[in-house]
Structure formats: C-alpha cells, structure tokens
C-alpha cells in the first residue's frame, strides 16, 4: 500500500469563495447579472412586461439552435450550416402549407429535410474524415440555395388552410409567456438532463475529451457524431419553423449569417471550441446575454453606427470576467 497515493494529503480544503468561483458559469452569470442590474436601474422601460416578453422570445430562436450547436461543439466539431438550414426549413414548411398541406405533414417534411442535411454533414465528417468546417460550409451554401430554389425570390406568407393554428406556434403565448420561450426552456431542460444524466450525454463529452480513447473503448464514435449533427440540424429546423410562424412570412434569406450568433452564444457561454467542455446552463446564459445586450443598446438609444463597438467590447469584458474567475479559482 502506498499512502502517498492513497490519501491526497497535500490537498488543501477549498474556501467557500473559491468553491463559488469553481462553478464554471459564475463568470458569465456575474456579467449577465451586472448587465441586467444596470439596465433595470437606468432604463425604466427595460423591466416592463412587454419588453421582457420581447427579449425572451427573441433569444429563444438563437437559443434553440445553440442547444444543438453545443452538442456538436462538445464532440469537437462545428456546424456552420445552421443559419441556412434554419432558413431552408422555414421556407420549405411554409411553401408546403401554402400549397395546401396541413401543419403536421408540412412540419414533418421540413424537419426531415433538415435532418437530411445534418446526416450529410455527419457522414462527411465521419466517413470522409473531413474537418467539420468543410461539409458544413458546403451545406451552408447548398441549403441556402435550396431555399432560393423553393421561393424563387418571393416571400411566402400564405400558410394555407391551417394558417391561424400555425401562427399560434411561434406567435402565441401561454399565460402571457411567449411560446418560443416555453419551447426553448423545455428543450434546454431536456438537453441539460440528457447531457448530464444519460449514458449518451456522457459519451458526447467522452468523445469530445479524447476521441481516440472513446473509439478504442469500443464506443460507436461515428454514430454518435452523426447523431449530433442531425440533432443540430433539427434544432435549426425547429427554430426556422417556429420563427416562420412568428413572422407569418418568410423569405429565402431568413437567418442568413445566424451561424455566427449561434456559435457566439455557445462560446460566450463557456463551451470550449476544442470539445469536451461546457454546459447547457452556460449556453443559456450566453444566449440571453447577447440578446439583452442588443435590446439594451437600443433602449439606451445608442447611435446605431456605434452599436457594434459596444457589442464587441461587452463580449470581451464578459468573457474576461470568466477568465478572471478561472485564474483566481485555480490558485
């Protein structure tokens, strides 16, 4: 027996303070809380119910997609195609309904198309050993092109026989709480449970931490990776459909460039782009932070030309807070 190994006797009990700092998300949470406080105190309209409803609905779309993106990034990948899939699914579902389809089959076909793009991404990554950047960039181009082909440049705003019911999905609310937000919360909870509690979720982390080890342990790494790309695409598809319903009209350019916002929300929420590290809670915070920032700058009446400067500066400051926590927490 080796007492040296047995009892980590040189371990010093962590103080309460460093215990708090050791929680991953404390940094971003602190940044968010500070932002909320500043806004509530300085702008009376910020805390009003109507504004809060707007904010929650707005971040829900990016948030839903960020959940799927989180899985992909946790496995060490990236998905650049989400913005295009989002637009493509919205346009496809809308177009089917405008041709008289009912809601359910139209949504189903829309999501199947999204899943097909995800499958393509996943297969290129796992079978053709491509860097995830390449096939998802190709899909970005292809899915947007498909959206253009479907609409031929015209907005679609006739959602067919069940359009009132369809409007409710993204535009309605339950007890005053907007539906997209409810959907986002439910999905976030599911993702959180799946990632932290299920076998599959833990394997996502394992693959991201050391893919070779996972493969040598006998995990079906390929299938797992393909599945995260499909889920990411499905999340983008869901966001597209819900947003189409909320906007009640869609064009082929819907969500162009949103992949960057989604990835930003994920990374600001503390997900490590090289895989294996990050939590759903952090991603939710990151998503909220970006939207509160946008909303706050507008309510402040910041010159729109200057807004980009503020957005950039606050992102850096928020993430610095997080680094600061880490360096203090580490000592």
């Amino acid at each position, binding site marked *: 027996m080796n007492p040296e190994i047995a009892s980590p006797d040189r371990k010093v009990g962590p103080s309460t303070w460093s215990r708090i700092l050791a929680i991953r998300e404390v940094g971003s949470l602190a940044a968010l809380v500070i932002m909320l406080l500043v806004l509530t105190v300085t702008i009376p309209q910020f805390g009003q119910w*109507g504004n809060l409803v707007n904010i929650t609905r707005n971040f829900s779309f990016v948030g839903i997609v960020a959940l799927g993106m989180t899985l992909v990034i946790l496995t060490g990948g990236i998905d650049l195609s989400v913005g295009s899939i989002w637009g493509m699914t919205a346009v496809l579902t809308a177009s089917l309904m405008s041709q008289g389809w009912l809601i359910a089959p139209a949504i189903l076909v829309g999501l199947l198309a999204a899943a097909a793009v995800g499958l393509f991404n996943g297969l290129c990554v796992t079978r053709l050993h491509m860097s995830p950047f390449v096939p998802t960039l190709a899909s970005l181009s292809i899915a947007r092109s498909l959206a*253009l082909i479907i609409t031929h*440049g015209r*907005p679609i705003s006739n959602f067919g026989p069940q359009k009132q019911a369809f409007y409710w999905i993204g535009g309605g609310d339950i007890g005053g709480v907007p539906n997209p937000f409810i959907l986002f919360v439910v999905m976030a909870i599911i993702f959180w449970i799946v990632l932290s509690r299920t076998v599959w979720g833990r394997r996502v982390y394992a693959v991201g931490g050391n893919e070779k080890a996972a493969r040598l342990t006998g995990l079906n790494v390929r299938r797992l990776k393909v599945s995260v790309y499909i889920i990411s695409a499905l999340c983008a598809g869901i966001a597209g459909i819900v*947003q189409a319903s909320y*906007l009640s009209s869609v064009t082929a*350019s819907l969500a*162009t460039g949103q992949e960057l916002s989604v990835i930003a929300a994920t990374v600001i929420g503390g997900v490590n782009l090289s895989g294996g590290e990050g939590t759903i809670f952090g991603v939710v915070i990151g998503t909220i932070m970006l939207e509160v920032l946008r909303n706050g700058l*507008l309510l402040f009446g910041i010159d729109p*030309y200057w807004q980009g400067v503020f957005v950039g500066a606050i992102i850096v400051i928020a993430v610095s807070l997080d680094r600061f926590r880490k360096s203090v927490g580490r000592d």
Partner: protein
Amino acid sequence: DKPKTFALVPKSISVPFYADVEKGCKEEAKKLGVQILYTGPNTADEAEQVEILKDIVARGVNGLAIAPMNADSVIGVIAEARKKNIPVITFDSDSPNSQRICYVGTDNLQAGREAGKAFKKLLPKGKYAILTGGLAAANLNERIKGFKEIVNGSDYTEISGSPFPCEDDAVRGVQIVQDVLTRYPNLDGFFFSGGWPLFGAPEAYVKAIGKRAADIKANKFVVVSFDTLPEELKLLKDGNCSALIGQRPYAMGVKSMDVLNDLSNGKPGENVNTGVDVVEASNVDQFLK
C-alpha cells in the same frame, strides 16, 4: 412638455441609399422640433428588423416609419404598434396587407417600367442581362418585373443565368459584369436593379466594361441602372452608362417626417409617391450640382 420622438427603421444602416433618407429626416426633424430614433440592422436581416421594431414599440415612440425587409413579416408588429396608438407608416418598401396608415416612397413597379422605357428607347431589340442585389428582395423584384413588362416580346432575349445576384456587394457586382461580358462579348444591354457596381466601384466598373465603353457612347451597348448617387451621375456624364433611374431618398426622409408629424397631431395621412428621376445624357448636368 417633452418633444415627440419618431423612429425610422431602414432595412439596413449600411446601405448608402438610407444615408440620404437619414439626412432628409434628420433635417426635417430639426425643423419640426422632434427627436429622431434612427436605427436598424447592420446587415439586411428580416428577423432582426422585426426584433428591433418590437423593441421600439415596447419602448414607446410617437410615430414609426419602416422600410420592411419582408412586407408580411412586419404585419404583426405594426398591428401591435397601432394597438398602442403609435401611428405607423412605411417608406421605401411597402407592406400593403398591414395596418400601416400610408406609404411614402417610390412605386417600384412603376420605377421599373420607367427603367424599361429608357432602355427600350435606346435599344429597340437585343440580348440583355440583369444584375440584382438579392434574389429574395421584394422591391428589386418589383423593379425587375416592371422592367420586363416593357422590355419583352420576341425582340428581346434575356441571357441564361440572369438575373445575377451580387448580394448587394459592389465587388461581386463588378465581377459579374466582367464575367457576363466575357461570356457574351456581344451583349446588347444591361439592367442594374440597384447601382452597386456604379457607386461602389466606379473605376473597376469602367475597367470591367472595357472596350464596350465606346459602344455605350454610340448606343450600341446600353446600361440602365437604378439610383443617382454622385458617383453614378459622374459615370453617366462620362458616357460610361446610358441612363439612371433615381429615387429620391432625401425627399423620402423629409416626407416621412412630415406625414408622421401630421399623424401624431391627429391629422390624416395618405400615400406619398416621391417619384423617380429619369437621368440621361441630355439632362445629367441638372442633377450634377
């Protein structure tokens, strides 16, 4: 009491066209003694525009002017604003199915027809191409529709691949002009539904048309474009394009303010057609001041 605040939301703040609208509305606002909240997406994004509109409605203003990216996606937020007694108008592009009170701006279909007429006058028949911004932009599609209403029939053929989208990017616009002229050295005409290569890359554009510049002067090659920014007028003056169809962004800004002011004072408002200028070699000096 507090001065009134009017909000003006363009499709994107980085489009030069709206810079003139902004100037117009700000100068008029000073005259009227009202405040202006001019804000919009950095890049054209329909969902972000709706978000911004929602924020403005939640914040509360005395009047709202919108250039919708997508005519129907703003219906909801306009209804919401009207419910809160905020008068709403549209400018530059319309949303006819919404509860907006009126529209201030160009009739894009009509403007497209004007372009078509100018084109037809110079080129009775031939092979042409169209350059456009995004394939999904409604106002540009209206212009193209109007243009084609006039320029149709067996005398005209549109080359395959047209309309070519440059994504509102001057660099791509010039590249497309280059490539199309390479592929179709005997092309007879070009219609730009917006002036990207002209105002965003005048010298590069001149290089791109290359030897065909002489044909333009001789009316053997016709280039009709939208917008009348100074860079474009200069190109027309030098004989590097044939005709320009100008909207009046400054007037749009001014008129939007006037209409909003009237509406907020309880007066009725009605559509204002700010009209178009058709600028050709003969009258270009009038506009080049």
